[in-house]
């Protein structure tokens, strides 16, 4: 594998940012989703509307928040509403185009576990839980998942269904998880809407690597495309963002 000028995480973040259309209203969580959404806003999608579940509507943070409640979000937002209001008047009302989620486990239908590894009553690992994810999964028009690709995460059967991402229980015309962006490539829902299949690979990644990192028998689109590598401005913008963030948070 040739040495590359960017990390796998940078490729994943850039790919996720590109997936956001220019005028989308986007419900984001902390971490990679927030990095990707803000990268999109700072590059091709300056009019992207970012909504954080803490109630910040139209936030334009200069540094990435460490928590959903960071003051930076409130200070740069068009307005800040209460938690009940952001969940009812914005998310539940169907005003979100794209919900952005992470996952501890994901299955081939797009269902997500962020609750427990092992048995709920007697867990091996207790994870943080649903947070806003359950309703993001069913109320956003579509959901992008951004997560590192591994057999531990891409499983045949979830230990717990925290969020229904299959689109089956979604409200109105919501479609559930339509895209999973990993450090290896991109999975999208297939044409009959049932299963997530591999549609793109990042530069230098082979289909075998993706299949080996997937706990189910991963289907592949006929014509697998390669993700264009991060452009210079994407990379520069992302690194600046992370640099500002590190300085601000004193890490």
């Amino acid at each position: 594998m040739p040495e590359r000028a960017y990390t796998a995480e940078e490729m994943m973040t850039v790919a996720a940012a590109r997936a956001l259309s220019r005028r989308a209203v986007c419900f984001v969580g902390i971490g990679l989703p927030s990095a990707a959404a803000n990268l999109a806003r700072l590059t091709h999608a300056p009019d992207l509307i970012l909504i954080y579940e803490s109630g910040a509507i139209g936030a334009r943070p200069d540094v990435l928040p460490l928590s959903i409640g960071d003051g930076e979000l409130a200070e740069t937002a068009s307005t800040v509403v209460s938690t009940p209001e952001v969940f009812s008047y914005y998310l539940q009302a169907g005003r979100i185009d794209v919900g952005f989620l992470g996952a501890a486990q994901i299955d081939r239908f797009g269902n997500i576990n962020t609750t427990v590894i092992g048995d709920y009553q007697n867990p091996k690992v207790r994870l943080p839980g649903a947070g806003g994810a359950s309703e993001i999964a069913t109320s956003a028009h579509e959901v992008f998942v951004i997560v590192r690709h591994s057999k531990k995460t891409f499983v045949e059967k979830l230990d717990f269904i925290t969020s229904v991402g299959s689109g089956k229980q979604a409200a109105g015309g919501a479609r559930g998880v339509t895209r999973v962006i990993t450090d290896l490539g991109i999975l999208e829902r297939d044409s009959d809407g049932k299963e997530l299949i591999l549609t793109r690979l990042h530069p230098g990644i082979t289909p075998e690597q993706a299949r080996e990192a997937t706990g189910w028998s991963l289907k592949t689109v006929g014509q697998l495309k390669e993700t264009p590598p991060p452009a210079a401005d994407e990379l520069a913008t992302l690194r600046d963002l992370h640099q500002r963030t590190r300085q601000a948070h004193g890490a």
Partner: protein
Amino acid sequence: MTPDVIYDQLIGMGCARKLVFSWGGNPGVGSLHRFRDAVENGWPRRLEIEEHSHAAMASAYTAGAAGLPFAVYRGGLGSDLPKVNPMIRRIECPFTGEELAAVPAKRPDVTVIHAQKADRRGNVMMWGIIGVQKEAVLAATHSIVTVEEVVDELDAPPNAVILPHWVVSAVCEVPGGAHPSYAQGYSQRDNAFYRAWDSISRHREVFSDWMRRHILETDDFADYRARLRESPDA
């Protein structure tokens, strides 16, 4: 909704019998180790949990504040949460027949929040990320509000988020009282402490020792803050 470091401390000291929550982690850092240890290993005691999603918790506080016995929201269908929480039920719209989720109203015995300002009569004003604080106070039987400062006049802008003095049980002036969280306009979130908490709380002995020195052996909040400035990480 999101038990933070203080909940982790209460749980680790065995002060909590039951946790009602929707997200239990150290934001931006990782696990709440004392919470995990209690749920995974029952240390120092078994912790009963009642688990929801944020949307359900927010609706439940809203119903509590509004004097309704339950809240309706879109959610729950197909998730495993209702299987482990019998307090998430189905309800049918009496007009369309549509199935929705219902949870009982949350009505805390006591709600404790931190806000920016109160006036001398006890009217409380908050701004920024207000979360579910207003609803949590209005839903509670009793409420305690710590504030950054008590002022003569709130100088509130129109439609400011105000809790009238007659809905609040007690107001206490505790500058920095949100630590390690923050009060917008007064303090910054102590991100370093959230990170430090990961190693403080990871092992039972380190945690217990830290609690003894910072909480049990300090006189009050000011003393605790002073001790913390001396030795933030251990």
